[in-house]
Every structure is written in C-alpha cells, then in structure tokens.
C-alpha cells in the first residue's frame, strides 16, 4: 500500500511541521507588540498605581514536551518606563529611582524552570535592574500556541512576580505600603525560521 504509506508519511510530516516536537526558538513579538511588562505598586496603601516598560525585546526556546528545558532572556529599556504621567516618569528615570543614565540596561535571563502542573511552571532567573542582579521567581502559565493567520507559529505565556525595591537598591521612601512592586508579564513569541 504505497499510496497509504505515502499519505501517512505526509500526515506525519504536516503534524511535525505544525507542532514543535523539538525545542524551537522564538523571538518575542516586539514589532507587533504582543508582549508587555506591566507593573503596579500601592499608592499610600490606598490604591494601585500601574505602569509598564514600553521597550522590550527578547528570545526564548520552548518545547511543550520538555518545559523544564525552556530558556528565556528579555532586554528591558528602563528609560521606557511609562506611568501615564510625564513628570512622574521623569522622576522615575531620575537618580531617586531607576537612574537610567547610570544604569541604562535592565534584563531578565532565566536559569531554570520547574514545572508545577499542566501548563504552569516556576521560572527562575536573574533580574538586572538599577545595576543590581538578583534571582527572582516568576509564576508562569502557558496561554496558548499554534499557527497564526499570516504563516507564522506563535506561543504565548503570562507570568507574575514581585520584587522589593530595596533589593534592587532603590530606597526612595514611598511609604510603608509601597515597598514592593508586582509585575504582570505577557510574552508572545514567533517561531524562528
């Protein structure tokens, strides 16, 4: 049954092409901006102030059958901080906070991944911010993946983490309720090649 075998082989080929059985490399979709690093910090303990970093770039490798082999690195332009208030953003870029003139680079580079269930994992990695590098943990959930309508293949995740400002040497006193910053991360990658 040569024809059946050929069809079967073709089917297998199509399946192999459309779902990554092996770890594939992805580029974070910064061009279409389907990625965001959002933060929130309590204001006086009475409400949440939200903002984001507008300029981010990155790559990751991902194999849904071997999640713990995932690697990701993200470059963040700290000067692109945007809290929808120019005077505050100017202050946040200043030496009281991110001091972006002295520390123009920020990045996250993963070190290891622990799977915590179906589609969830803890991502460990080094966050460099304000010239200080520390390990942080990000709780990640796989949102989805598959072909896009324009001939590409995409994979997307969401994540949350939090940091203490003082851990990164930022000691401007915003009050006792505002020592911690929470992050909401959305990362969508387009498969390379």
């Amino acid at each position, binding site marked *: 049954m040569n024809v059946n075998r050929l069809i079967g082989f073709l089917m297998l080929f199509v399946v192999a092409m459309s779902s990554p059985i092996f770890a594939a490399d992805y580029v974070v979709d910064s061009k279409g901006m389907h990625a965001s690093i959002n933060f929130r910090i309590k204001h006086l303990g009475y409400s949440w102030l939200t903002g984001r970093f507008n300029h981010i770039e990155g790559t990751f490798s991902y194999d849904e059958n071997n999640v713990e082999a995932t690697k990701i690195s993200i470059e963040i332009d700290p*000067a692109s901080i945007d809290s*929808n*208030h*120019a*005077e505050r*953003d*100017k202050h946040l*870029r200043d030496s009281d906070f991110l001091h972006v003139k002295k520390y123009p680079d920020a990045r996250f580079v993963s070190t290891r991944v622990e799977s915590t269930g179906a589609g969830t994992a803890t991502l460990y990695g080094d966050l460099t911010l304000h010239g200080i590098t520390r390990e942080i943990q990000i709780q990640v959930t796989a949102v989805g993946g598959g072909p896009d309508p324009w001939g590409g293949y995409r994979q997307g995740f969401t994540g949350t983490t939090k940091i203490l400002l003082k851990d990164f040497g930022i000691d*401007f*006193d*915003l*009050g006792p309720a505002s020592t911690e910053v929470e992050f909401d991360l959305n990362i969508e990658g387009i498969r390379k090649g």
Partner: protein
Amino acid sequence: MLRNTKEDYGWVAIVLHWVLALLIIGLFAMGIWMRSLGYYDTWYNRAPDLHKSLGLLTFLLLVLRYLWRMGNEMPQPSLKLSNWEKTSSRIAHTWLYLLTLIVILSGYLISTADDKSVSFFGVFSLPAAFSAIEKQEDIAGEIHEIVAWVMMGLVLLHTLASLKHHFVDKDVTLVRMLGLRKKN
C-alpha cells in the same frame, strides 16, 4: 513719577525690576528645595504647583516689563562707562531676559510633556502647546536646570556690576534702581 525720565526710573520700572528679581531668585531656590522633599512632606505636591504658578507670573511680568520698557525712555548709562562696558552691559541685560524666558519655557514643556495643562493659582489653566518630542520631559528638564544655573551666574555678575557702579565708580546706577537718587 510712574514713568521713566532721561535721568531716573519711574516707580513702575523699579517695582517690576525688584519683583522679578525676587521671583527669579526665589524660584531658583524653590526649585532646588522642592526636589529634596520626601514623598510624605506636606509640600511634596504643593511646592511644584506653586513653582509653576509663580513661573507663569514671572512670564507675565517679564512681558509687561518689556512692553513698559518699549513705551518709556531709558535712563542713560553712566558717562564714565567705556564702550566695551556699555556693549557688554547691553548684551548681559538682553541675556537676562532671554535666559529667564528659556527657563520658563522649558519648565512649561516639562509640565505639559503629556498634554497636561499648567494651572495659574487655580485661576486659569494654560493648556499644552507642544508635546511631540520623545522624552520631552527629560530634555526640557535638563535645559531647565542647566539654564537656571547659567542664569544665576548672570544674576551674580549683574549684582557685582551694580555694586561696582556704587562703590568703585560711585555713580547713581544702583541708587536710581532703588528709587533713592537725591534730586538736586
């Protein structure tokens, strides 16, 4: 006398000069002080608001002063001055006006970088005119700070020059701006 004469400044010119001197030096000190305030300080938001209102007031008085100057005679400079002293004095006075304008304009461009308006003592709001440059608040902020320091250098020079007139040249330049010239 409200109006200037060939020999003396009128009271309008004198008052405008000293009110502007107070505002310009005061706003400079205020700018340094308010940046040192902590987040929980009562003046943390109040001081910048007042700084902006006083900055707008400075602009209005500066325009008024210029118009008044255009519509008035100017007392003649001291006859003892050499030509280079007259020329450099004229240049310095022009730059006192220009630098003040640059500081006010750059301050306005910080506050309006995201299309927010600037309030004048809560009486009216001056809307943003221009907010197109990327990181406008940072660029305008650098200009605001650097030009303010240069301006203070020029204010110091202006002050020293007036003291030189009074104590070295022993002429009426300083006393007539104080409205104290004895009339014979």
